[in-house]
């Protein structure tokens, strides 16, 4: 395998080209995920861009992204592989009608094997290994973590009927977690770990500019500044970067060129996800507006 990356700065520039902006920490983490061949565990508050990091990595490297969304009750047959039982039954009937004797080995072959995301990542053919995103691993139950160990350690999957399948090139594995459940130490030990912080205002503006190219600078600046204030409020669900992007996109779809209160209130549903939050943010907006108009008022009076 050869993904030609020289250092974290190189990663940062190349991610920049696919419109994903990272700080030093994330660049280093992604660099090691590529070069050391170890899985990377990303944690952070919801909406700071954990999933997007994996997507950006895949498009930067120019390879396939295979995604496994975790949920409670996720089992081997949904994550690793499954046999196609219906086809096996058909094959049995067919063999019977032709009067042919069937062996075990006839039914457990490639033909009847259904790939699920992890097996697909292991058996991926091509010069560059795929990026496997195991999203929100904290949603799966802890039994599932144990299922991953062989794959994370060895990049291999054992199928009892077929034997062990080992990856030609170890896939680039990115796991994300929202920390709703404490992950097992054994899983953490096998991974590189990076905690993504919410970006500081300057970078947040830059990210918004990339994601919402139609928005103008005045709108972006004031929106990012307002977001800084909103995140300090006592909210049920503080808006993450993803919500902010949606909100600015909504504002700019309305043709707003700066943060006007009426537009902001109309698009608030992109930002506030509970009725209480909506009320709190609307109040903050009113305050901001009041402060603005008094600030504008003074020089006006001076000239008048």
């Amino acid at each position, binding site marked *: 395998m050869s993904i030609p990356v020289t250092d974290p700065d190189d990663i940062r520039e190349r991610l920049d080209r696919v419109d994903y902006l990272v700080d030093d920490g994330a660049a280093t983490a992604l660099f090691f995920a590529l070069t050391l061949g170890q899985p990377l565990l990303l944690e952070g508050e919801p909406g700071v861009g954990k999933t997007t990091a994996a997507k950006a990595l895949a498009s930067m490297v120019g390879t396939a992204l295979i995604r496994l969304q975790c949920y*409670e009750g996720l089992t081997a047959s949904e994550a690793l592989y499954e046999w196609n*039982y219906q086809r*096996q039954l058909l094959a049995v009937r067919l063999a019977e009608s032709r009067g042919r004797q069937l062996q075990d080995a006839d039914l457990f072959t490639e033909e009847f094997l259904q790939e699920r995301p992890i097996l697909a990542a292991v058996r991926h053919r091509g010069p560059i290994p795929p990026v496997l995103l195991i999203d929100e691993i904290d949603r799966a139950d802890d039994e599932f973590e144990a299922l991953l160990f062989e794959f994370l350690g060895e990049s291999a999957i054992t199928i009892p009927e077929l034997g062990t399948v080992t990856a030609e090139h170890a896939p680039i594995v990115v796991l994300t977690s929202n920390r709703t459940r404490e992950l097992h130490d054994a899983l953490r030990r096998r991974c*590189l770990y990076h905690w993504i912080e919410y970006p500081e205002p300057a970078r947040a503006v830059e990210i918004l500019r990339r994601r919402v190219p139609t928005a103008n600078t005045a709108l972006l600046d004031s929106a990012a500044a307002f977001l800084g204030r909103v995140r300090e409020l006592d909210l049920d669900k503080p808006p993450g970067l993803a919500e902010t992007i949606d909100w600015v996109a909504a504002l700019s779809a309305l043709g707003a060129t700066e943060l006007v209160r009426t537009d902001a209130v109309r698009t608030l549903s992109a930002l506030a996800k509970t009725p209480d939050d909506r009320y709190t943010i609307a109040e903050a907006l009113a305050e901001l507006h009041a402060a603005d108009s008094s600030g504008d008022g003074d020089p006006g009076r001076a000239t008048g």
Partner: protein
Amino acid sequence: MDRAAFATAFAVRLRRHGLTVGSPAVETFTKALAACAPDSITRLYWSARISLVNRHSEIGIFDTVFAQVFGEATLAVDPHARRTPLAKTSGHADDAGTGPGQPEHGPDDDPLPWSTLPDPVSRTDTSDGGIVIALRSPSPRSGTPDVPFEHLDDMQLAQLGSWLRKAAPHWPTRRSRRRVNDHRGRTIDLRETLHRARRTGWEPAHLARHRPRDKPRRVVLLADVSQSMHAQATVYLHLMRALAVETHTEVFAFGTTLTRLTTVLRHRCAGQAVDHASELVTDRFGGTRIATNLRALLSGPHADLTRGAIVLIASDGWDSDPPEELARAMARLRRRAHRVLWLNPRAGARGFSPRVAAMAAALPYCDALLPAGTLESLGAAITVITGTATR
């Protein structure tokens, strides 16, 4: 530079400060140093942190040690170092209720504890003595951690344990998405059917069926350890320990702040468990902020624990937060939880009526108000838990 020796020496330093750094992590760090030359302190910092630290709660300790070893330059590169007060990073970092974004001191003490520097001088009440009215009212002040939790009584623990084990078969359950074989199940288990068909010449003679598996429903216990609950603190600690050990219960203690005690109280030795709990709960036997703590739970990293759970709140309802806020928090909790039960030690007294403002505000959102001040009444409360409808 001998990278291996460097990595090992740094790992030893980290271990001395209580970080768990395994040898695979040191190996990773060595490889990381080889893959990316640490030509600046920033780069060295990230290489070390990504390969050696594997949980968020350890980042604070790591930052401290890194700053000690490599000078003060790191303070400028890492926002986290500035954000986390160093004093917080020394203990057993179980940052249950104090993740980023949550007020650690309560909203009116310090409006933005996660993004501003801590006050150099603590803002304790500086009211100039004068006339002190000896009136006991709910207070938002955090308590003094001089009085440790009393040690647990083995007999009482055993009693509670046996009650819980007796209740286990009737413990409330919920349906999980995993399935088990059951001949009365509704759906056909193709995998198992084919497996059996092997024995009958691939003729699926016996249809195997399965059904969703039931899991014990999660119980979340929030116990008030403020001054007004001092008398009952020990008996609740017994309940917390017994629940944590015997069942999959999440236990939290709260006074002015919320502390998750689940992992601590599961310790093999009951004595050590209580000692650790005393270390962690620094706000015990002080004031109460029920609404603030409920909100912290509902928006914190452990918020999902309450989803579909049976939530027990053990408190006398003396709250220094306004009752409207408690009502709002309880309404949110009610929407999220399966059942909300309130254990009130005073409810057993004759002539009790829930007249405390907070209690009256919370009551409409509770499924039951149970008297629970003594061991026997806790036994009765356990029966109520097992009696909650199973879905």
